[in-house]
């Protein structure tokens, strides 16, 4: 009787509905990806899996031919699982990389005990976290406490479909491209808020305040930078943005000459980089999880695997942010072909190198800079980054207009010979004018905060 009671009481309705929801979501994503990519590019894998089922039918009997949609679902689910495993490994090994880099900067060795030179440390950490008990505080809101790590973690994985790993290796080149990456940030905010509210703890609540205010504010300069990039490349697709940097033009626009967007958009690059660091809650912007003030903020009350989910989400988000920066400003997978590797593999190598560079700079910031105060953080965003980003956006518009004039000789005020020299001269002139204007707009803003606002 007691056993029965226990069972009746312990039906995990929340968990079941959550699992069903995630399942439905995965199915929807597979269908959408299939609808976007089309199954003709997947034909070989499709055939092999169909043959597998037909063989099963021949040997053991059974339904044999399954509906086409099911085959595609299986194939895309397998692909997604592959990406999932890669991302989890990246997330886990980013922690090791960060610890090693920090150790190098602080003249230490870092983890050395597990495996040769500490290489297996993340796996040991993962196993340790798996064994730990998930404690839910008495006064906590159980549903929110349970949901928050999931809501933080899922968008981090969803961002993976956008990452341009190499030439022709973008999992899904979405039509809305970069906006999708942007929309995922919204769920991150929601997850942090739920964690903060669900913990029923004043430190977590303060962290929730800070995180939401910070994320909402830093989205604005980011949006302006993205709009500038879209103006330059003429497309929202990640693939088109990279192509605009490699080939100079796409179907919808482009500059007419190949250049990495970090050159005409240097201010944009700086602002986007800072905002991305702030969006991923990293030092010096890690006010939401400040260990020394807030006892690690919104995940104070989390233990074991749920805590690990927050951290995995953070590191995967850093990776995605670094990839987006690479794709938008550093030419993505662009780079000379390396010997013995072929085009595709060398593009993957270039992409990984650039992402690692960005990751290294982010860790470098953590190793060297102290944390900002809340008011400094807000002032940096609203009084510095947003005006500079808006000025940058305006200048980009002027730049694109001038470039269009350059490309159409009918619009020229003076008739000149259309040669490479005039072209280069015009480009140099436009770039210098742009930097000059940017300096004119920004020089006041780049002064130390005290001087200007006193």
């Amino acid at each position, binding site marked *: 009787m007691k056993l029965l009671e226990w069972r009746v009481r312990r039906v995990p309705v929340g968990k079941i509905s959550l699992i069903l929801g995630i399942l439905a979501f995965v199915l929807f994503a597979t269908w959408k990806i299939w609808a976007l990519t*089309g199954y003709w590019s997947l034909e070989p894998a499709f055939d092999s899996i169909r043959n597998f089922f037909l063989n099963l039918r021949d040997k053991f009997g059974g339904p044999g031919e399954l509906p*086409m949609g099911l085959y595609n679902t299986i194939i895309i689910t397998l692909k997604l699982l592959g990406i999932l495993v890669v991302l989890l490994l990246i997330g886990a090994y980013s922690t090791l990389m960060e610890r090693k880099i920090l150790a190098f900067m602080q003249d230490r060795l870092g983890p050395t005990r597990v495996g040769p030179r500490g290489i297996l440390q993340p796996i040991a950490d993962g196993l340790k976290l798996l064994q730990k008990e998930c404690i839910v505080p008495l006064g906590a809101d159980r549903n*929110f406490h349970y949901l928050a790590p999931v809501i933080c973690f899922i968008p981090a994985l969803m961002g993976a479909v956008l990452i341009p790993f190499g030439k022709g290796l973008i999992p899904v080149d979405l039509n*809305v491209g970069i906006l999708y990456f942007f929309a995922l940030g919204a769920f991150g*905010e929601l997850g942090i*808020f739920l964690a903060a509210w669900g913990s*029923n703890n004043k430190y977590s609540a303060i962290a929730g305040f800070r995180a*939401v205010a910070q994320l909402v504010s830093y989205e604005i300069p980011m949006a302006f930078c993205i709009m500038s990039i879209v103006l330059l490349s003429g497309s929202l697709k990640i693939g088109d943005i990279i192509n605009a940097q490699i080939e100079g033009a796409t179907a*919808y626009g482009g500059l007419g000459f190949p250049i990495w967007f970090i050159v005409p958009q240097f201010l944009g690059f700086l602002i986007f980089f800072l905002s991305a660091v702030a969006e991923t809650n990293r030092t010096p912007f890690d006010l939401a999880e400040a260990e020394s003030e807030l006892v690690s903020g919104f995940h104070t009350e989390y233990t074991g695997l749920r805590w690990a989910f927050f951290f995995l989400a953070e590191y995967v988000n850093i990776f995605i942010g670094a990839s987006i920066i690479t794709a938008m400003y550093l030419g993505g997978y662009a780079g000379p072909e390396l010997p013995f590797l072929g085009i595709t593999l060398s593009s993957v190598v270039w992409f990984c190198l650039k992402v690692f560079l960005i990751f290294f700079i982010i860790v470098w910031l953590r190793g060297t800079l102290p944390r900002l105060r809340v008011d400094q953080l807000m002032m940096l965003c609203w009084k510095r980054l947003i005006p500079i980003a808006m000025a940058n956006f305006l200048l980009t518009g002027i730049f694109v207009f001038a470039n269009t004039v350059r490309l159409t000789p009918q619009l020229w005020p003076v008739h000149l010979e259309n040669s490479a020299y005039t072209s280069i001269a015009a480009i140099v002139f436009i770039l210098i004018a742009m930097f000059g204007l940017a300096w004119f707009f920004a020089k006041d803003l780049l002064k130390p905060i005290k001087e200007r606002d006193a």
Partner: protein
Amino acid sequence: MNNLDLTPYVPWIWFSFFGLFTLVMALGVVFHRKIVYNAVFLALSLVGTGALYITLNADFLGIVQILLYVGGIIVLILFSILLTRGEERGVEYVNRNKQSFWAFSLIMGLSLWIGTQFWKVQWPDANRNLAANHWERYSEIATIKTLPQILNRTVPVEAIGDGLMKPYLLIFELASIVLLVAMVGVVIYMKPEKERGADA
């Protein structure tokens, strides 16, 4: 077995699924008694609406829906809940005014009226054809090999840009002016009483 192929109807299935999801979450908004839960249900309901747009191949609209409503408005609602602490934990508020009958009948009447209007509207040709003989279209499509292309008819972003900048420019700008006025109003409203008097 080929007769059982549901592939052409997958979009319709997803549409009904997300429609149901949105409605259930909307019911959660109305009937749950904790204000934070209401806000989260609202967020899920809006995500469901975004997913509806995506099933209808309006990807841009769906993403913008999620970006604006979940990222902006819901976060603001949650923020205001956090700031005001309008409720103590564990206290449930029950609406005790006796308006449910009138509210219900008004809503039903309104939705009936809107429904009849929808029924009467002459929709554009492409949509009408799709709705009228989608069976033939999709059964024909399922046999030939253009299904990906048919399903891939997303509304291009350029079309939206053209629409906003060419025929609907005036409406677009008017909407932004309304937003600006609202923002200025809020700024003035939030000033302390004295400063407001001094400015005016």
